[in-house]
């Protein structure tokens, strides 16, 4: 969590990259219109949605130190909340949202309260176990298509704003992401966030200070589940389809990869990670069908080189620059 030591300097590389990124993302639909390539909008929407999911995972993984290997479960639950309600003819987005919130918090509360009794590798595995149970549950739910999946009858309708339109969906996702980023920023610096981060650092000590850490961890777990569920709601609208494969362990693994690739425990890490991962995937896929043989070693290389993923590289640049500028000001002072 080195970002606390590198202050958000106004023109630091991290700041510039993140700001440029957000502005660029806001302009994508314009670009797509001018270039007559609406596919870009769909692709970037997917990135945004995965960024939201990764952001939610980063809350528990990066800030809380809880490695969930089953976070795709909540993505899948969000998708199915839309798909199943729409299957039953309910396309009211608010109702679907409500359902997502309720389902994700209930499931999060139930599984979280058991999973949080463990820690370390056991936590990784027990979250995986819960996700797998739900995966198999949905595979056998014949009524909702089982393994073949369930097509959305129509998109979510938020009082007239219908999420099937690519541009509407794009801006909704962008808005949710921005809100998520802002809320996450606020959260990690609040009392609650400090408790979460300190518990990651040294849980035993937190208890000795008088914190019932279990309660706080459960709370952040549920919050994270809900945010991921919302990403699922958007994802359901993007693919217009619900499938158990969304909650498979590979998807959970990909979410972890995104968070780590971008920079664990950093605000913009998940976005950077989702962007890097999906774009690299697309780029390499165009290059060769054996793209994974390149992608795999790339991941290994990045891990060996940088501890904090892409955000880590940016921070290194910043640290070099600040130490250089410190030197410069020092010399100036000396010369006067």
């Amino acid at each position, binding site marked *: *969590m*080195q970002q*606390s*030591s590198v202050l958000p300097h106004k023109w630091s590389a991290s700041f510039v990259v993140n700001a440029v990124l957000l502005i660029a993302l806001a302009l994508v639909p314009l670009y797509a219109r001018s270039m007559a390539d609406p596919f870009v909008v769909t692709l970037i929407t997917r990135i945004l949605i995965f960024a939201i999911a990764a952001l939610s995972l980063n809350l528990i993984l990066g800030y809380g130190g809880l490695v969930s290997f089953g976070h795709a479960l909540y993505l899948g639950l969000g998708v199915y909340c839309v798909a199943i309600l729409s299957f039953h003819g309910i396309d009211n987005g608010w109702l679907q949202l409500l359902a997502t919130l309720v389902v994700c918090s209930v499931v999060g509360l139930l599984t979280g309260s058991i999973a949080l009794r463990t820690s370390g590798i056991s936590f990784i595995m027990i979250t995986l176990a819960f996700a797998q149970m739900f995966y198999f549950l949905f595979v056998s739910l014949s009524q909702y298509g089982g393994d073949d999946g369930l097509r959305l009858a129509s998109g979510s309708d938020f009082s007239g704003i219908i999420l099937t339109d690519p541009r509407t969906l794009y801006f909704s996702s962008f808005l949710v992401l921005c809100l998520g980023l802002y809320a996450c920023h*606020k*959260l990690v*610096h*609040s*009392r*609650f*966030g*400090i*408790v979460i*981060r*300190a518990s990651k*650092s*040294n849980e*035993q*000590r*937190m*208890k*000795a*200070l*008088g*914190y*019932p*850490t279990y309660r*706080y961890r459960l*709370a952040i777990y549920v919050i994270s589940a809900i945010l991921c569920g919302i990403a699922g709601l958007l994802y359901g609208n993007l693919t217009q389809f619900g499938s158990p494969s969304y909650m498979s362990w590979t998807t959970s693994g990909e979410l972890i990869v995104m968070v780590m690739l971008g920079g664990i425990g950093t605000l913009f890490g998940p976005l950077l990670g989702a962007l890097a991962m999906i774009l690299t995937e697309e780029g390499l896929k165009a290059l060769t069908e054996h793209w994974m043989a390149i992608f795999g070693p790339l991941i290994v290389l990045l891990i060996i080189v940088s501890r904090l993923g892409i955000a880590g590289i940016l921070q290194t640049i910043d640290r070099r620059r600040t130490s250089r500028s410190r030197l410069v000001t020092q010399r100036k002072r000396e010369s006067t």
Partner: protein
Amino acid sequence: MSLLTVRQLVKRYGGLTATDHFDFDVQAGEIHAIIGPNGAGKSTLITQLAGEIRPDAGQILFNNQDITGERVEQRALRGIARSYQITSVFPEFSALQNVMLTVQAHQGHSFCFWTPTSRQPTLIEPAEHALERVGLKDRMHVPVADMAHGEQRQLELAMVLAGQPRLLLLDEPMAGMSQAESIQMTTLLHSLKGQYGIVLVEHDMDAVFKLADRITVLVYGRSIACGTPEQIRANPDVKAAYLGGDE
């Protein structure tokens, strides 16, 4: 009325009885030292008082309330603070944030999701005050990871004090300190005397005899003597079991 009372405490590890029907009490404002040979069960006792492990039998009363079944965090909120032998701080945070965490723990729940802690005077002021007491005020924005070992020990103490504890459990606070530092620590503990009840476990006899109001000698989980420093120093059993010849 005593601050802490321990009645017939028992803790067994397999065949070994680490705490054996142990009786003990601490008065408010008193430093009560526990000494005894290695493996006598001193640390085991401290961890039971702190609530990290459960005794097999017996009772622990704090302010006449039974806290035997309470968890670590509940006891901490009652005012039982434990210092760690190995420095145990939060290295990612600044010194100020470390102490603020202690203050925050005692202000009720922390389910506040929005306002940054850096804008909450109710947290900052008491924390600054505690840092001032240990002489770290001008270093408060330095990340703890960048602090020297000695500073971290001071911070550790600031964290304990910021929680406004009533009882301190200190397990070998002088361990690993050079003579110069032990003397400083002794002075600091001396200045705390009278304000808190203190349980002190220490092998540094100079410090123990200087600080303690009462000393309990623990051997194989049992108390073999309890009394003032003078009485203990003169006790032949203690000499045989622990002190040995003059050092």
